[in-house]
């Protein structure tokens, strides 16, 4: 789960990670009021969307008067921002964040993520603040300093020194940096974060380190014990069909093709997408209906897949284990009564009671249900069906 910049900074402040003073606004008049309350003579107006690259896309404005804050707020709220992370359709700005301007001496990068190979969190720092870290990693990997932190011992002074001296900080700034990094480690661990990125982390003229930007995402599996984080979820930032699927325990990801997929199990779902592509088609989605594949979930699955107008045919690929295929077959027939399915549906059922299941589907004599013998046969049939052949 992702949150907005202003929410991440709220969390930072609780842990003593320095951030600029700021306030969130949903309306232009509130933005002006926020700027007046913050005081000073320079403000930054930042679009709040769940995607990076906002600056380049015109989502971050510098205002020299409160009138300008109002003007930029007016301009940004309701605007669709297209960044390299939003996709071509972009994201609508529903809220903005007004921040005090800072006297910036230098920009850095500081991030934390799970190192899956080491099985512990790693903190990464770079002097190349403001640049995409993936780009730095590709072009100048030597400019990224990484320290893996064993959670059994936590963040130690040496972790901080490795980073601070690695960044080439003068010795009088080392301890300031270390307290920043140590507080950030605590933010990561306490909140079951999956990723934290501060890009840029800035050093002010006075030698203070401040998180100028903040990006955080969280381990979905830990949200049951992070109610405060969960309350920050902004559903308007998520793909509506994915949210809806989630409510029914289905895992759905929209893709660009025209062959809908409904499969039990994540690995087999991915494999089904792959074989559709291999046989010359294009998958329209990933959809894992879970182990059960009951009539209700299958019906819901059809409904979700058919919300995508590109879908020309659907491949139902179920490998029955504990769940019996004859039950799944009946579930599919029932589902077509609950949800109208007006495209060809290729059904491949294998595993427990597969033969009985195929019988059930054949005897039902529904025109647009096509039975397939195996994975390959199903993939070929559905690709042809989507082509109208």
């Amino acid at each position, binding site marked *: 789960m992702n949150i907005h910049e202003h929410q991440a900074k709220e969390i930072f402040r609780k842990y003593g990670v320095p951030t600029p003073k700021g306030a969130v606004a949903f309306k232009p008049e509130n933005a002006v009021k926020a700027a007046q309350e913050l005081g000073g003579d320079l403000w930054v107006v930042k679009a709040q969307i769940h995607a990076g690259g906002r600056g380049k896309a015109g989502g971050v404005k510098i205002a020299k008067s409160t009138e300008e804050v109002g003007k930029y707020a007016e301009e940004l709220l309701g605007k669709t921002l297209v960044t390299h992370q939003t996709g071509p359709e972009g994201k609508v700005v529903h809220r903005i964040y007004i921040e005090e301007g800072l006297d910036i001496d230098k920009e850095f990068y500081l991030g934390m*993520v*799970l190192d*899956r*190979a080491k*099985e*512990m969190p790693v903190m990464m720092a770079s002097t190349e603040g403001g640049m995409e*870290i*993936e780009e730095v*990693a590709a072009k100048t990997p030597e400019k990224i300093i990484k320290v893996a932190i*064993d*959670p*059994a011992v936590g963040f130690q002074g040496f972790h901080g020194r490795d980073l601070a001296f690695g960044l080439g900080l003068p010795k009088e700034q080392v301890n300031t940096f270390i307290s920043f990094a140590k507080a950030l480690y605590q933010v990561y*661990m306490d909140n*079951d974060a*999956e990723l934290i990125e501060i890009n840029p982390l800035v050093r002010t003229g006075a030698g203070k380190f401040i998180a100028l930007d903040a990006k955080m995402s969280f*381990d*979905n*599996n*830990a949200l*049951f*014990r992070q109610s405060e984080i969960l309350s920050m979820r902004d559903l308007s930032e998520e793909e509506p069909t994915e949210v809806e699927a989630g409510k029914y325990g289905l*895992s759905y*990801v929209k*893709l660009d093709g025209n062959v809908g997929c409904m*499969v*039990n*199990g*994540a*690995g*087999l*779902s*991915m*494999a*089904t*997408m*792959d*074989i*559709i*592509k*291999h*046989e010359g088609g294009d*998958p329209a989605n*990933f959809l*894992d209906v879970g*182990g059960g594949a009951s009539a209700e979930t299958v019906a819901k699955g059809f409904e979700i897949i058919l919300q995508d107008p590109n879908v020309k045919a659907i491949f139902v690929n179920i*490998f*029955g*284990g*504990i769940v019996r295929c004859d039950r799944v077959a009946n579930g599919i027939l029932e589902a077509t009564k609950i949800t109208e399915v007006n495209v060809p549906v290729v059904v491949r059922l*294998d*595993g*427990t009671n597969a033969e009985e299941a195929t019988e059930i589907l054949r005897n039902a004599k529904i025109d647009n249900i096509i039975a397939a013998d*195996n*994975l*390959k046969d199903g*993939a070929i049939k559905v690709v042809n069906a989507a082509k109208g052949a």
Partner: protein
Amino acid sequence: MSILVNKNTKVIVQGFTGKEGSFHAEQCLSYGTQIVGGVTPGKGGQKHLDKPVFNTVVEAVEATDATVSMIFVPPAFVADAVMEAADAGIELIVTITEGTPVKDMMFAKAYAVKKGSKLIGPNCPGIITADECKIGIMPGFIFKKGNVGLISKSGTLTYEASNQVVNAGFGITTAVGIGGDPIIGMSYKQLLPLFEADPETEAIVMIGEIGGTLEIEAAEFIKENISKPVVAFIAGQTAPKGKRMGHAGAIISGGKGTAKEKMDALEAAGVHVVVSPAEIGETVAKALKK
């Protein structure tokens, strides 16, 4: 022969009396697995499925000499259950539960490894030695006895692979579902040498997916250490970047962990990499005929 578990393996179930635990323990028993008891705190002294229930794993181990535990407790209690099993000296801990927080596994795995326990999962179908011992939720009949070892991150795709191997005229020695989470217990690299050493296993099927580097590490290991033919399929060739595909660990982050880089690494290590998931069985057949 087989790896890790066989007909003599004594198994306890943590989360024995719960809905999932009961259902699958019963299925395992009817497969022939020696389930010798289970643990549900507060229900010690009762009988369930005709087997004794204990309050703690230590008690269960003392009374039954079990060496393996199968865990079905809810996600919030997985770390505790894994560490309890490790502390009680359980040699192999198989965690079926899906949805465990990453942070919990970070601590639990480190602890289990320190205690010398082996870990399978979480978020996996379990482990099965054909006709001898099923510890998990897989449909036993799909795994006909044979000479192919199977290691997979996925559940139903494991069944698909086994089914293809059987349809091609072969069968399975042991199949291990290693799980789809970002932090899991035994990986390909720890299981491959066991299959290499098992005289009955003549070929190995490896099912991977996007995310992480386990398949890349496996490729490096295979190059140096594995003489038996390995057939591999990597799921998620068509998966978009930055999107989680069902499994918590199945995500391409920062452009890393793609199917292509894994397939290339395996190919370079001499593995028979199949592009289509429908070609696993026939490729095993070809590899074994050589």
